[in-house]
């Protein structure tokens, strides 16, 4: 490294709206594939560049990131006014191997299903290993990296920042790992000669849509008669606090102070009481209470209180 470079200001120029890495803390909450990616990154022996790359990723220095089939392009803002361009090219699988692997996965719909809902069965890695390839691009030959920065050691800190962000993307969407190796959704979900854009089944012949104005007939206009509906569906399940969240898993990339699931479960818990009363045709107390004027704004007092606390801290 030249002397001039040593004295160059190391502070990169700030980026507005850059992609910020969220996993700044320990890796304990990670999935097994997320941890494997980090191990892979550490295995590259980047030394200080890994740390700098992480700082870049956390600071949001990566201005853009595009994922293609077997390739990743990124724009990273360094210390120089012009941002650098980073490109990764991953070695895709040979057609034969790809076909074999797709077929092997196809025999396990549940694995594909789990991949589609962002889970990665450990068996998939074994499947890759059996086919003689690795799921993770761990070997040097698995990918090639270029960067427009003057640093000639590869991967540079800019590339490390991109790998860092890529790891987070893989963490939340393990299907990316397969994408990088050239296996995409289309390979896994055989479309048996159908048209795109269907809703599940082939659409029935279109029914003519009619209903412009309200009906002129007095009976249809006012309604013939109304008797309260007899049923509004089955009882809520008792065992699960948030069935849809259980089903969907956590919202990826959550950056809130509270835990997402706890927040939603708390809201559900409050809402269910009121909702049951409405369902039962009763007028809930919450609404009667809400009907009254809210009184002195309680939020103001709280805010004042909180500000006082802040001040004492200072």
């Amino acid at each position: 490294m030249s002397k001039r470079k040593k004295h160059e200001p190391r502070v990169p120029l700030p980026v507005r709206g850059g992609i910020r890495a969220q996993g700044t803390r320990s890796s304990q909450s990670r999935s097994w594939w997320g941890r494997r990616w980090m191990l892979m990154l550490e295995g590259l022996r980047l030394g200080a560049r890994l740390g700098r790359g992480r700082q870049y990723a956390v600071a949001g220095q990566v201005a853009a990131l595009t994922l293609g089939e077997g390739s990743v392009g990124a724009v990273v803002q360094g210390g120089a006014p012009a941002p650098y361009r980073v490109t990764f090219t991953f070695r895709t699988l040979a057609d034969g191997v790809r076909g074999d692997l797709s077929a092997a996965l196809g025999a396990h719909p549940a694995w594909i299903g789990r991949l589609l809902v962002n889970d990665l069965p450990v068996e998939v890695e074994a499947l890759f290993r059996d086919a003689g390839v690795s799921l993770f691009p761990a070997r040097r030959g698995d990918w090639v990296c270029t960067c427009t920065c003057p640093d000639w050691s590869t991967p540079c800190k800019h590339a490390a920042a991109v790998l860092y962000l890529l790891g987070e993307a893989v963490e939340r969407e393990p299907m990316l790992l397969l994408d990088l190796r050239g296996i995409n959704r289309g390979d896994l979900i055989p479309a048996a000669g159908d048209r795109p854009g269907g809703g599940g089944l082939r659409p029935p012949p279109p029914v003519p849509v009619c209903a412009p104005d309200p009906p002129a007939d007095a009976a249809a206009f006012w309604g013939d008669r109304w008797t309260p509906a007899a049923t509004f569906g089955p009882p809520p399940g008792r065992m699960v606090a948030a069935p849809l969240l259980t089903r969907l898993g956590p919202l990826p990339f959550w950056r809130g102070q509270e835990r997402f699931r706890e927040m939603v479960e708390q809201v559900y818990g409050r809402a269910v009481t009121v909702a049951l009363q409405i369902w039962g045709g009763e007028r809930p107390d919450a609404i009667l209470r809400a009907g009254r004027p809210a009184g002195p704004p309680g939020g103001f007092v709280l805010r004042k209180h909180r500000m006082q606390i802040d001040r004492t801290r200072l």
Partner: protein
Amino acid sequence: MEMPLAEAGKNGHNSPTMVVLHGSWLADEWLLWGEETSEVGGGLRGDCDHTPAGDPCVPGAPEPWGCDREALSRALAAFESGGAAERAVSDARIYFARLPANAGRIASSRQWLRRGSAGASVLTLRRVWALPLQVNELFLVLGATSEGRRLAPGVMAGNDMGAWSDLFRLAGAVVARRQVLPGVRAAGDAPDPCETPMPGGVLPDTGYESRWEPALDRAEVRRFTVLAACLPGAALALSSDGASAPHSGDPLQAAAAAFFDEVVDRLVRLASVTTLSRAHAERGRTFSAHDAWGASLRGDTRAIRWESPVEIASLAEEIARWRRSVDLESRSPLHLCFELEDPPGESAPWRLRYRVEGLGQTDEDPRTDWEQAWHDNRVDAAGRESLLMALGQAALIAPIVDAGDGGVTGATLTTDQAHRFMRSDAPLLQAAGFGVRLPPWWQGAASHIQVLARVTAEGSPVAGSFTLASLVDVDWQIAIGGEPVTAVELARLAEAGHALVRFRDRWVEVNHGQVNEALKLWRRQMREARAANDIIRMMLGIDGDAHGLAVAGVEAGGWLGQLIRRLRGETALEPLPPPAGFCGTLRPYQERGYAWLAFLRQWGLGACLADDMGLGKTIQALALIAREREQGERRPVLLVCPTSVLTNWAREAARFIPAVPVHVHHGAGRSVSGTFAEEAAAAGIVVTSYTLLHRDYASIRQVAWAGLILDEAQNIKNPDTRQAQAARALQADYRIALTGTPVENQVGDLWSIMDFLNPGLLGARAAFRETFALPIKTGIDLTARDRLRQTTAPFVLRRLKTDRDIIRDLPEKREASVYCTLTREQASLYQGVLDELGAALKNGASGISRRGLVLASITRLKQVCNHPAHFLGEDGELGGRSGKLDRLREMLEEVVAAGEGALVFTQYAAMGTLLQRHLQQAFGCFVPFLHGGTPRAERDAQVAAFQAHAGAAVFVLSLKAGGTGINLTRANHVFHFDRWWNPAVENQATDRAFRIGQTRDVMVHKLVCGGTLEDRIEAMIREKTALADDLVASGESWLTELNDTDLRDALALAQDAVGEWTP
């Protein structure tokens, strides 16, 4: 609460009006508007249209149609609607409504004027006043609608409101099932891009808003579509400019969806916003876009405030990707299901099959195997993806789905795995929206190990020898699936070490904690002494727990066995001869009712006698009181009833059990405290009203009461009222509730009455609501109604007139006089007429003039007895001013509640109009009134509608109207509101209801004001039948032949006639 009705209609009508409210959806707002319908002239005016004739029907026309804002405000003030009533005056605006019109006249909603079809009509533009409701007002208005379409006297909800309220309740159900996800949407009005950050660190509006969005699975979508299809055109009738808004697809469905979206979000917010979260949403610190979103989700406003709109946009994309599988599923007609099958042999593995619903298989088995569905060429890529995603999600929830043979068509499970699947995975999968079918023997949460109680209680239930506090011996018997097991078998189950064990040729879930409890019980005490009360409670299903094990059943011998079998109604009660002092005859079913009352009384249990009106609840209760007296009871019985029937009770008691002294505690001159206690102690029955029960509670509670009887016990259905609290607090040896309304159908009302009768039977009120009321009302627990019935059935006796063995006991036509009281207003008017007459007689009127004077006075007195408004010829409020009218309404409410029909006869056309008006307001539907002036065509239409069960169950007729040829056999109750005192005329009227083809018997009620001329003439006719035959045929004219003294006696106002007490 203020009375809602306008004393005068806005167009100068002098009569109160009926308001029908409607709700329309317009551009994200729910607008309330209304029709105002006048009640002129006995409903002879057809569909009302307040628009002056020749209204040019163009925008800008001077006179808007329907309710103006004052009328809206009055209607909203009549029921709990938040601040809407006040807002209506200031915030209601003019909108354009497209309404169906017929020959230039708007065809009104006719839900209360329900008559023949109007024929084809065209949409006509009118201007109407409408009020955009705020969220809490909307919730209150729709909540009120779901309790019934009659919102308040004179205020009705239209069919469209009903359909909206159903959608509203579905929104409640969807939220209760937690089919809701948080989301982000672009706000309709984009924020100013140049907006600078506000002072004080408040973040700028991003132009996105947070939303709680319904995430419906296919079943929910189906439910929604069905309810949305019920919305009538009126739900979209309004527009702001008179033009029809552009719609794609079905506009009503779109409006329903928009409404549903709005309501779900508002509902969740309303419930989850707290003072803290509101402050946080408004001014709190946020550290990320997610924080900003999370805060906004729990704020009053939806706007998300954050520095970077781009981040919110990408959050929206993330959320869309995240919930993609749920959206895919709701759109896809394919539905993944799991079916667990019994293994073919004891040691063979279990099979979990993956099946797909929605490919149109046979009705018996609507599902196809996964393999078959996968290769079905009707399934396209999106369908496959949705199936795969569903499978992946199921695997995340229940790892077993992914285990076994790799799972193309299913998985193979060991017995322990199968148990885990049934116990923990299946409910999770079900909750997540997957179809799950388990073997039929699996009982979910129910335990398989139970105890049976075998009770030996020697002796027979001779009165007094045993009480419910007596101890009985209980032998506990361990049972599995209802069958007794031995200790050895139990021990073997415990040793097996599996959660699911084959036992006596079937699968049994073994909970080892329960097995240990059972073994412990075996070792320690299989026999113990318990109070009979405990056993009764077990039998009723109240305490379903003994030593930590569920009680499967109770087998009892001896006296307790007899008691239990009688309570369950398995063995008939021993017939009980009526007491000697009872002057009258009990019909066989009344004897049974009396024996039942005596049986429960013997054990100190409260009884609710809920026989149909007219079956004689009064005399059954009186017989019991007489029996108690004869058995040596010296303490009095407190009988509480509505003011309108006080006289009736006193008279019935005097007639049927003359030996028991009756004290009526009522009126301004009633005694209090010490004096009252003395008077009460001297009496056998103290009759008082519900009002005085709590007013004079301090005096009443000092008396030692033998029994407490509530007539029309539905008066205490609301446990918060003072009278209900007083009734529950009073001490008495036995308690009886009499009611003619089917209490068991009104879950909400049952608790108070039952808690009065048998305190603690249904638990605390909150617990009752939790375990019975809400599950029954929402239908979420289908066993709740049965459990409630099991618990309450021993204490409720309800016989219907239509019961086969009751009909056998009844004569074809029964007549009863119903004694009513006068209000103070009536009494003073009555006295005024008497004074006038007295003065005139003193002045020596004689001959023709005396005759005319007397006849006129009698007519006026009869009018006073009917209603002050009838006498005064005025047009004001009717309720609460006439004892007779109030009593009639009470009785008609019972008739209507029982699904029966009634004819109400009056001899005065003016009174008929008043009756019609009052009953229309009370029942919220058109009540026909047939009188001499009714055109033939209209008369025929009304009669036909009544006979066809269309519209009201009540028909008002003038006594002379129509003469002959009217067939009104739908009615099985006939009320004579005032008397002609001519049996021939009255019988002819009664026969309208009593014709060939009438399958039910007919009950005739003759309303009589006690202590007035009506009462005395009635008595005279009864005593002097000869007189009746000769003279009464000519109506009232024979009264003019009486001399002054006799006349004064006949017309005088007795002290006890007034039934109203004012401080």
